[in-house]
């Protein structure tokens, strides 16, 4: 009697749970279906050509994928050391009474809406970046990385704002990962005469899969971030190496042009950009989750103390 009811319970709740899987599949299916026109017409050339001209119906998405990858990688370069530093400080170094307030503050950094960062970016960060760019020494201005007029809006502003937004994600996951490193690890290192840095380095090394996972999670966030980037990157579909150049990202072009896309091919091209963004973030997120999970699982198993001591020395 009870068993049959339990089965009913399991099926009923399972049906709800299935909805989650279905949504993910439905997103992939729907985006593919809605972008068929563009996929059929351009094929792989869509991702190799640079011309984005809605008037003549020519769509090449290379500038957007370039802008997305470039801005995210730059943001990651800025954010990763800082985020790991924060995670180490909160979990290993700071006095206990500071821990909760600091956790709260970094979480607040994550809670501020993207649009507010964007607003702040337009009116505060961009003028600041413009001054910074204008005061760049001439020697640097002749290198491709820093060429072009100091507009303020552009890749540099986008990378900075992305870095600010990614830091709390990476640091909170890295903090959790560091917490799962057994205390015996650190004690072993200290017992061997390791300095604080060496002990923490050993802990970071022990937790490396999880730490890499947390960095990738931040990367996934940066790839998909829309509003703040749209508002400061300058929205110019050009492939450029310069940090000062206004560029464009995949999410920004969707946000800006979607409601203007009257022509079906135009709309399909934009949805195809969305589809690829979906696939890329899916892969990055899946990989990072797998890394974090495998870390969590290995942490609950027996502690390989001997290996840890080797790396500490």
């Amino acid at each position, binding site marked *: 009697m009870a068993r049959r009811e339990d089965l009913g319970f399991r099926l009923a709740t399972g049906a*709800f749970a299935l909805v989650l899987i279905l949504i993910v599949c439905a997103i992939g299916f729907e985006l593919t279906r809605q972008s068929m026109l563009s996929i059929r017409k351009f094929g792989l050339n869509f991702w190799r050509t640079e011309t984005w001209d809605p008037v003549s119906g020519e769509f090449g998405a290379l500038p957007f994928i370039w802008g997305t990858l470039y801005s995210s990688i730059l943001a990651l370069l800025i954010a990763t050391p800082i985020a790991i*530093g924060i995670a180490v400080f909160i979990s290993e170094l700071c006095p206990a009474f500071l821990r909760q307030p*600091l956790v709260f503050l970094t979480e*607040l950094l994550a809670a501020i809406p993207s649009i507010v960062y964007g607003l702040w970016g337009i009116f505060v960060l961009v003028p600041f970046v413009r001054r910074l760019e204008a005061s760049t020494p001439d020697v640097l201005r002749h290198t491709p990385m820093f060429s072009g007029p100091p507009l303020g809006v552009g890749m540099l502003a986008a990378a900075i704002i992305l870095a600010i937004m990614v830091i709390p994600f990476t640091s909170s996951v890295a903090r959790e990962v560091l917490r799962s490193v057994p205390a015996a690890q650190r004690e072993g290192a200290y017992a061997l005469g390791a300095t604080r840095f060496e002990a923490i380095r050993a802990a970071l090394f022990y937790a490396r899969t999880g730490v890499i996972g947390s960095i990738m999670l931040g990367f996934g966030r940066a790839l998909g971030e829309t509003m703040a980037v749209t508002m400061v990157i300058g929205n110019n579909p050009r492939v450029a190496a310069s940090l000062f150049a206004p560029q464009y990202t995949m999410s920004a072009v969707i946000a800006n042009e979607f409601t203007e896309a009257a022509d079906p091919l135009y709309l399909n091209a934009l949805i195809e950009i969305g589809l690829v963004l979906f696939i890329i973030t899916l892969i990055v997120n899946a990989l990072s989750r797998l890394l974090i999970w495998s870390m969590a699982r290995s942490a609950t198993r027996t502690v390989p103390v001997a290996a840890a001591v080797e790396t500490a020395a």
Partner: protein
Amino acid sequence: MNRTRRRKLLSSLFVGFCGMSVLLALVPLGFVLFFVVSQGVGSINFGFFTQTPKPVGEVGGGMANSIAGTLMLTSLGSLFAVPIGVVSGIYMSEFAGTTLASAVRFSADTLNGVPSIVIGVFAYGIAVLPFRQFSALAGGLALGIMMIPIIARTTEELLLLVPGTMREGALALGATRARAVFTVLLPAALPGIITGVVLALARIAGETAPLLFTSFNNPYFTTSLRQPMSSITVQVFTYAISPYADWHRQAWAGALVLVSIVFLCSLLARFATRKLAGLQAR
């Protein structure tokens, strides 16, 4: 000896770097909050909460329609996200070892990482295109999809925190699994689940990208779910990229309202978690 000194120096440098990174991250936080408050507070007045936007050139006007819109859109989203999220959370914690539970957990985590703009495109495809009409319903759908994974994962984690003895007690008294969950486990985990819902609400209330082409924007006050509906975020975006100083002021005021909502929700959530922790200690 020299080597020891170098190691110690390196160690202090590292400790200093970690402290510095905390400061580095808190500087932008301070700057953002400072500007939002200092720029926003001057434009907040009674009219901001009671009037709808005025055309360019006319001074005054407010965001009454956008504030109402954000409240309606988020409620609409939670209306279907809360049941789906909570029940799938129950499934994941009750049948934790099953393949389906792992698959659902994985889907929730990946869905959580899907860019909000992509969710917007998806909602556009299924709820705007077929009806040829931007609507509040489509916006609510997009927000709801974003809430589901957050609520599901919090529910799962909090149900797992409820002491196993409580479940065993209920089962030993002859309760079915459903009864044990709904009369014993859920009530015990309720404050935590409410926290999760509040946090999810705080997150989606600040979302702009999924609303840009689902609920779109509307300069008028409306309660019709089949019509475009304004929201604070989309309105702030419209104002921010406009060339008018008066609209910029309104944008800062809108940002202040948004940040206040988010801040209140986080405080509320913290309060609820503390209560839950107190319950467990008892």
